[in-house]
């Protein structure tokens, strides 16, 4: 594992984010906000037969939240709703290749939290049932 959160990869994703911009015809979307950094993200999901076929994000934030959103939207494409529901902090740490530390963890997990909330709205579940650790 890398020891620097600002390893090449996250900065590269921040500067050239993947899947950035509104996703037309999205089946699910959720807007979330992190008051610590002022990160402001919307996640868009396209879902067919219980599978995430496309994922986008839009908004502004710090390198950790934007970089994570870029990586996450890559990662969840092709996953089933169930798989996305089950994801937690450990998956985000795996994805980043580093533990962001308690102060910045919320930045790193913001996009996953928003994606899960989008899913819950889509499935008409209560969004407060998002994994408590996020």
């Amino acid at each position: 594992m890398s020891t620097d959160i600002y390893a090449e990869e996250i900065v590269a994703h921040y500067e050239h984010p993947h899947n950035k911009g509104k996703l037309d015809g999205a089946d699910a979307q959720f807007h979330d906000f992190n008051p610590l950094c002022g990160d402001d993200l919307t996640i868009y999901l396209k879902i067919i037969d219980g599978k995430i076929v496309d994922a986008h994000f839009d908004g502004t934030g710090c390198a950790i939240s934007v970089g994570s959103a870029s990586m996450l939207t890559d990662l969840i494409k092709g996953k089933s709703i169930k798989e996305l529901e089950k994801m937690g902090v450990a998956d985000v740490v795996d994805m980043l290749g580093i533990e962001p530390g308690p102060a910045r963890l919320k930045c790193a997990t913001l996009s996953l939290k928003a994606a899960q909330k989008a899913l819950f709205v889509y499935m008409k579940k209560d969004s407060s049932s998002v994994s408590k650790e996020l």
Partner: protein
Amino acid sequence: MFDVGKVRRDFPILDLEVNGKPLVYLDSAATSQKPRKVINTVSRYYRKYNANTHSGVYRIAEEATEAYLKSKKKVAKFINASGIEEIIYTRNTTESINLVALTWAEQNIKRGDRILISELEHHSNIVPWIMLAKKKGATLDYIALNKEKTALDDASIEEQIAKRPALVAITQCSNVLGTIVDVKRITEMAHRVGAKVLVDGAQSAPHMKVDMRYIDCDFFAFSGHKMLAPMGIGVLYGKRDILEEMPPFLGGGDMIKTVSRQEFTFNELPWKFEAGTPFVEGGVALGAAVDYLKKLRMESVREHEKALTKYALEKLSGVKGVEIFGLPARDIDRRGGVVAFDVIGVHPHDVATIFDQEGVAIRAGHHCAMPLVVDVLRKPALSRMSFYIYNNESDVDRAIEAIAAVKRKFKISDTLKLQV
């Protein structure tokens, strides 16, 4: 002669290493570090005379009561109040301001009255007034910043005070821009229209000489923890005649003289406003902090911070791709030891995390001043370095090196032209 090397040796935390590098602490606007004298005072209190105050008749209780009282005398003298009757201990500046909002303002602010604050305020001097205005049907007005967004606009001060507010609540030094406000002049103007004045001294009392009888404000709030004392001890100064007329704050022990089943009478000033067992060791340690600062002389503290802030502004303005907020170096007489900045293209939280990797502690965020940072300066967040008596030029140099590290990681070229 102010000797920063000597001062530094009094602060054990400065021996710390963070990420393998000596700690550079540039977040004193959030809280100050503590000198050995204060640490030892707290420790000595617990080892030698810990007991509840006011009620005990045994020796150590008398000692604790005496030390607590003595600290109030020191604080009264430090801010040139007329006596300890005017020194109320609270938890912090926020509680001091809320005390005024929930007692004096509760009794005196009526429907349709105006409360005047400014765009420079910290949330602690905004939210209590929003709450009060909503409850009372009063109007909350703001003195606007000038067009350079560096200081309060003189025309706006005139215009707002002409609306005859019932209360003016204003900071003496911005925790974001470092701008020093001429609170004596504003107090004079406000008194002429019959307004009471509360000054938020959280960022001024630790850094410059503050004189209650010179400023002539009605209330003055500050925190011990930003001036070398522990967290949890704060001060509210109030003019004696106003405090006499005010209803008590919290009810309980210590604030009463007598209690019957249905009635109570309240204690004399300042105890009328201090219900329950107070933070005795905090008060005693605040007295020690005041002693420490007095020995340094507040005039010298201010000169030291002015020189360091000027140095930082000059160094920072030589770094490409960095935007600096607040008054320029030539206006250093109106600027406290706070420098907010933005590394263009990098979020302040990323800046602060990379600074931390370099062993440099700075603050990033909205600095509990969202109306100023978000609405006026139009930034989601800012990076901020702030100075105190133990900071030196080498600390500023380490911060400048940390900016270079930020730019390396985000591949920002040094030849980038700042686009404003």
